[in-house]
């Protein structure tokens, strides 16, 4: 089985070899017609854009919903927020992601016409973000649940309001605890972003399906796409590890071996 990666230097119109195969992706020169490599890089860009937007939405909403789910049910407004966040989580985590993407793309715009003008990558990012936010919310809830109840009681004894308790006592510890599952969730989101091909976002999966048909070199195309997905996920993993190390407070969350050694 001979692999021929030369196909990436061919242009996407008639299969001729382009003049600037590698220099064009570095921005040094431009091809008159884009090559498959140019297309691959732009597809990677779309994957990163959709995942990045989705992740931003997912983290903000996930932390918010996760925190709301742990509110004490002492006030009517808290009960209402508890109910809302529970509905949010159950709704978005119980529907398959591809169905949610189609709902946002075809069904909801049929009822709210202005949404038809919204570019499809925004709709996909929202769908991915909402889906992942439900999962992050559960992890944040678990993180908050793992904090000894004395912390909350101590905060109340100090006279902190509920908002202040969450802002200064509970969330800073809980969020450090949930970094490892959050890392997996972020990597999952990059992989889940492949559903965007179904609603016409020209990302890596769409590139793979189309380019393998045009070039008849499916193995090379899928190898390249696999490498880029893996690279993106590893990058997220690395960033999260750095954040985990930088944000560590000695003595508060001592889960890694070297943190234990410090004592």
């Amino acid at each position, binding site marked *: 089985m001979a692999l021929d990666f030369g196909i990436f230097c061919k242009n996407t119109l008639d299969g001729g070899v382009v003049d600037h195969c590698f220099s064009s992706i570095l921005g040094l020169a431009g091809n008159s017609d884009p090559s498959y490599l140019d297309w691959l890089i732009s597809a990677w860009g779309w994957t990163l854009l959709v995942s990045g937007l989705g992740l931003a939405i997912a983290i903000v909403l996930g932390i918010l919903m996760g925190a709301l789910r742990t509110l004490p049910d002492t006030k009517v407004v808290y009960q209402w927020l508890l109910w809302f966040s529970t509905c949010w989580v159950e709704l978005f985590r119980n529907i398959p992601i591809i169905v949610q993407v189609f709902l946002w793309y075809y069904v909801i715009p049929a009822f709210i016409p202005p949404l038809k003008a919204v570019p499809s990558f925004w709709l996909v990012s929202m769908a991915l973000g909402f889906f992942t936010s439900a999962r992050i919310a559960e992890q944040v809830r678990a993180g908050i649940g793992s904090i000894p109840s004395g912390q909350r009681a101590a905060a109340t004894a100090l006279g902190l309001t509920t908002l202040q308790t969450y802002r200064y006592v509970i969330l800073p510890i809980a969020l450090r605890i949930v970094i490892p599952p959050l890392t997996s969730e972020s990597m999952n989101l990059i992989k889940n972003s492949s559903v965007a091909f179904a609603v016409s976002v020209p990302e890596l999966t769409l590139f793979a399906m189309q380019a393998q048909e*045009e070039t*008849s070199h499916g193995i090379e195309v899928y190898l390249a796409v696999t490498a880029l997905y893996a690279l993106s996920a590893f990058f997220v993993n690395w960033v999260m590890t750095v954040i985990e190390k930088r944000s560590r407070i000695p003595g508060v969350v001592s889960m890694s071996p070297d943190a234990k050694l410090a004592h």
Partner: protein
Amino acid sequence: MFKRMNLILVLVLGLIVFGSTSSIASSLTLDKIKSSGAVTMGVRESSIPMSYTTGDSRFDGYHVEICRMILGDIKDKLGMSTLRINYQPVTSQNRVPLVQNGTVDIECGTTTNNAARGKDVGFADTLYVEEVRIAVKANSNIKSIEDLNGKKVASTTGTTSVQLIRKNKKAKDIQFEEVYGKDHADSFLLLETGRADAFVMDGSILAGNIANAKNPKDFKIVGEPLSVEPIAIMLPKNDPEFKAAVDAAIAKIVKNGNMPKLWNKWFLSPIPPKGIVVGLELSPATKNAWAHLNDKPAEDYVAK
């Protein structure tokens, strides 16, 4: 022509000898059919009316019926009393590998015979020539490819049409936004919901989707054919005897005058399961392919 006669002669001789000793016949596929008493036909799930399911894992269509006739002919040639046909649904992505590795003996779907695929698989003589057309809403003022300037154009991911519209964009120097459906039904939904102004695809697929729509009168097919492609039955490569047997069966079907009847049945009459009418008139290109049977790849049609 002389070469093909030779091949048929070799095949017939091979079959005569086959009765007494099985070591002579060198066709892997024919050997397999003979020894197992079964053949695997690759079919599509929803390529109406070429090859599709009518429910309950039953498959039918223009190419499927022709393949059954071909296999009936091969069964007689091999002197078998029965031949079991196993139907294996295939997709645009897996059809070539499945024929290459021998899972599928004969693929009766909507595969374009082109030079790139010709390196991996063989093709029988063409019985259907596809023209790539543009489908639009009936009230649209798009009449040709030039009118697509500034519009949104849908096509299906993983088809040759995507590359074709890209080429036309460049050649005609027009600008439009491409949107991609993950399958034909999805691309048609893009057109139906107004997310695309036009759907560029094989004429038979457009006609089939329009026929299946809630209100077929809302859509029309416009413009000159953007490309002409031979759609052929796909066979294993390097099995000239099997190809010769298939082509001989095709020649017989054409000679008996069955083709106009088959066209009428699948393209102009109500077809199962819902009794829709595709309504695609016989094109001169397809008629020409019947009159001059050949297995030329799509590249040879461009030069014409």
